[in-house]
């Protein structure tokens, strides 16, 4: 999925900033891996942990059970225990680390889209470190570990429903992106003084679409894989259901966004187009909104939620323009809009839903509800969404705000106009001298002529 994000973004920025945006995505992956290895996984899944944060397994070691960890990594015996013995489960497993790490990288990548084309490179590294190392893991701890306060609930079976991270991953990333885009301010030339908007189109739709396609596939793995196990009864069916719902949600999101875009423009009397980028982003929004409940929802509900997500995407898209916030990738509309839709609608449409603490009975979502707990579940998810937004928002404001005050947040005007690639990376994305046919590469003086000749 990192590949998908990288190319969606690369295609959506102008050619002079292409290297920069890909570089950011590469670093996301690399810095994310190191940070998540060092502290992120520990904050998220470290056991023991309190309601708020975990604290163990720093650098993949286990402070309370040093001997046990050593056994895990040193002793060849564990590779040969017999099936009849009790299986020695480890609290820290590499598989779990890897899976959670790719989620963390996703969350931090979202932000790079909204802040594209004008952010300092070092800033990006700092914030990426914080997000994968602290902000995101804490939210994961709240929502996805048994001791986290959102997951633990009130003791009556009230839990936060978020199967694959509509809230945890996308709402977090979307909020950070939102704050970042506000504090950075728009790109030069994006908004005119009279309030009208200039399009600054990406340099190649092809590459952006490539990214979109990869993301579609990635989302299926994202949602399908969130089951985490495949060996329990019914796991196969749940994985398949998740994927089917993801496809249907994406499909309805895309089609709705496409039609809304076409009709609103037609009603306003402007040129109306079948826009590819809107369609792709609508599809992504639909898939994002599926993350929360795709394992526990009938296909018709997926179509409904996808439709709402498509509308949400268009609404956020227009709100952002109205507020004069510049988001080159529509990252906020896709992830914040889609994530919010998912988190709020999931408790309404789920089939099994929450489990009563005493009777272990499933109460269903609001539609199938047999119990007042179903309504409480909606409230609890709303609370969860608000908590995530506040936590991420406040930290992002502090982080980006302080960097803005220090003057290291945004590149200088000259750099922005000339493009980050040449000045910061020394590698223009499409070096002109490599495009001259029939001209020996050493005759740089003739390059100009060759261009005209080609």
């Amino acid at each position, binding site marked *: 999925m990192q590949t998908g994000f990288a190319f969606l973004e690369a295609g959506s920025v102008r050619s002079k900033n292409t290297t920069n945006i890909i570089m950011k995505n590469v670093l996301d992956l690399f810095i994310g891996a*190191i940070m998540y290895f060092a502290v992120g996984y520990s904050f998220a899944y470290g056991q023991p942990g309190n309601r708020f944060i975990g604290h163990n397994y720093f650098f993949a070691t286990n402070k309370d059970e040093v001997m046990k960890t050593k056994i895990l990594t040193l002793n060849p015996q564990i*590779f040969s225990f017999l099936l009849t013995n009790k299986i020695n489960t480890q609290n820290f497993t590499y598989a779990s680390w890897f899976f959670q790490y790719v989620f963390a990288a996703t969350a931090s990548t979202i932000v790079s889209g909204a802040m594209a084309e004008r952010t300092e490179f070092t800033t990006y590294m700092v914030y990426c470190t914080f997000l994968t190392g602290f902000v995101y893991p804490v939210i994961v701890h709240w929502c996805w570990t048994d001791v986290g306060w959102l997951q633990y609930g009130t003791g009556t079976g009230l839990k936060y429903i978020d199967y694959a991270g509509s809230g945890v991953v996308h709402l977090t990333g979307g909020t950070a992106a939102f704050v970042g885009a506000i504090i950075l301010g728009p790109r030069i030339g994006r908004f005119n003084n009279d309030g009208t908007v200039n399009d600054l189109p990406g340099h190649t739709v092809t590459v952006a679409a490539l990214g979109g396609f990869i993301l579609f596939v990635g989302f299926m793995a994202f949602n399908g894989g969130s089951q985490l196990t495949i060996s329990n009864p019914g796991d196969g069916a749940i994985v398949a259901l998740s994927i089917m719902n993801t496809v249907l949600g994406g499909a309805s999101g895309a089609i709705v966004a496409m039609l809304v875009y076409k009709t609103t423009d037609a009603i306003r009397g402007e040129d109306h187009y079948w826009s590819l980028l809107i369609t792709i982003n609508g599809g992504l929004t639909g898939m994002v909104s599926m993350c929360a409940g795709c394992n526990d929802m009938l296909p018709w509900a997926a179509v409904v939620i996808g439709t709402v997500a498509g509308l949400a995407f268009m609404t956020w898209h227009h709100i952002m323009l109205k507020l004069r916030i510049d988001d080159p990738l529509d990252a906020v509309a896709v992830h914040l809009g889609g994530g919010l839709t998912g988190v709020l609608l999931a408790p309404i449409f789920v089939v099994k839903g929450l489990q009563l603490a005493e009777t272990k009975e499933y109460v269903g979502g609001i539609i199938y509800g047999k119990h007042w707990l179903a309504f409480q579940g909606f409230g609890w998810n709303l609370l969860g969404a608000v908590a995530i937004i506040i936590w991420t928002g406040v930290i992002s404001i502090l982080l980006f705000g302080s960097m803005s005050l220090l003057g290291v947040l945004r590149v200088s005007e000259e750099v922005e106009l000339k493009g980050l690639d040449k000045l910061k990376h020394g*590698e223009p994305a499409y070096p002109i001298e490599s*495009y001259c046919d029939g001209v020996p*590469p050493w005759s740089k003086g003739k390059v100009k002529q060759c261009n005209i000749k080609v």
Partner: protein
Amino acid sequence: MNENEAMQLELLRKQMAILQENLDQFFMIINGMFIFFMQCGFAFLEAGSVRSSNTVNILMKNTLDVFVGSLSFFAFGYPFAYGRPGNSFIGHNNFFGANVQYFEKSVIANNQTLGGYETSSSYFANFFFQYVFAATAATVVSGAVAERADFSCYIIYSFTITGFIYPVGAHWVWSPDGWLNTGAGTGLSMQDYAGSCVVHVCGGMAALAGAKILGPRLGRFSDDGLDKPIPGHSVPLVSLGAFILLVGFLCFNGGSIQRISKNGDGLEVSLSVTNTILSGSAAGLSSMLTHRVHSMVKGKGKYWSLLMTTNGGLTGMVASCAGCNDIAPWAALLTGSVAGVVFVFARQFVLWLKIDDPLDAISVHLFGGTVGTLAAPILAIRGQTINGVSVGGPIYGGGVDAWRGVGWSLVGLFSIGLWSGLCCFTLFTTLDMVGLMRIPKSVEESGIDMQKHGEHAYPETFVRIIDDRPETPRKNKVVKRNVAS
């Protein structure tokens, strides 16, 4: 236990065995498919790194790698590498898929009584998995010889590497008969889990031989010895390739266990994947920083170079191949950091030797592979197995045996490097003498695409961009071709 229960238990046991076998093969196949996708990664890494006038050529080479490689590996490669019986030097059986049990066994397994269980043929899964490794080794070379090697030269060496040179090395290390694996009497066994040495050093040496004999591209080094970089035509393509390769490497290393149904397999796979990503990350960051510092010191300006970062990351992953199943995560970080630094300096070294390597294939694969081959036995946890007991690596108290293991890896490294280097040197020198090695100067100057392939990579787009006449039809560029009447 009555008879009925015993029957049921037996049935269950048989079903489990069937499921295990299927799962193992399925696991290999799935990973093999992702590794196959690495071909796509290599293709685009290379396509972006050459000039636009040679793009079709390099893509063509990578496509043929896949296709020539599969036929060649089917006919000769697999038999040389894994055909049994074989001697300690080379295997010799199953040429053209002969002498392989195809269907009979699986049919038997279907109708069998409850007494025993016979495995069905795993030849196909093995073949596919090993084939994608062989194709990887061959692809490494195409990067180093890009933009100037002749097309027929390419077909010949691709055939030879996948059909002979790589399989012999693989036989030494990975076949139960191979001398590096059995230890040739020393009781040692070379540690190369996923091919740092077998795949990458082999490919890297071939690349070195090829690039050296071909000589640099026209205009790469000026007469006074100055180095004039020829940038690739599209950074986004390069990074697309790199991203695909990063994913591919995870499967390359994770899949190398080749089974998933045994006790502890899952742990080993996930440890491999974790180590691979950590090693790659460390290498990417360390080469980014090293490059920045290095170019600052040399006064060339300070840049955050994307290409150095991605290539560094790849080097780290190459380095993690050898030991990723048997080192702790901190050791992976260490291996990666070293590999990243080594990559930056290896690149300078190759330039200093006046060898022109458009893709940095030598630095990534040869040097990354070397780092990995040596780091694995030093940092290993289980290390060498002497008389059925793991003695542990030097750090974990392996003592003398552990150091002998390091020495054995060194022996393996040299023998595979030497084998691959010598074979390729002979091959390329011969090709050079018969004049099949390098394209004519005129072709090199005007670009291979139009001359050899008749297909320009970008027939119009950049024309439009550059002279800004979007709607003008360019009639003179239209190639007319008569359909035979």
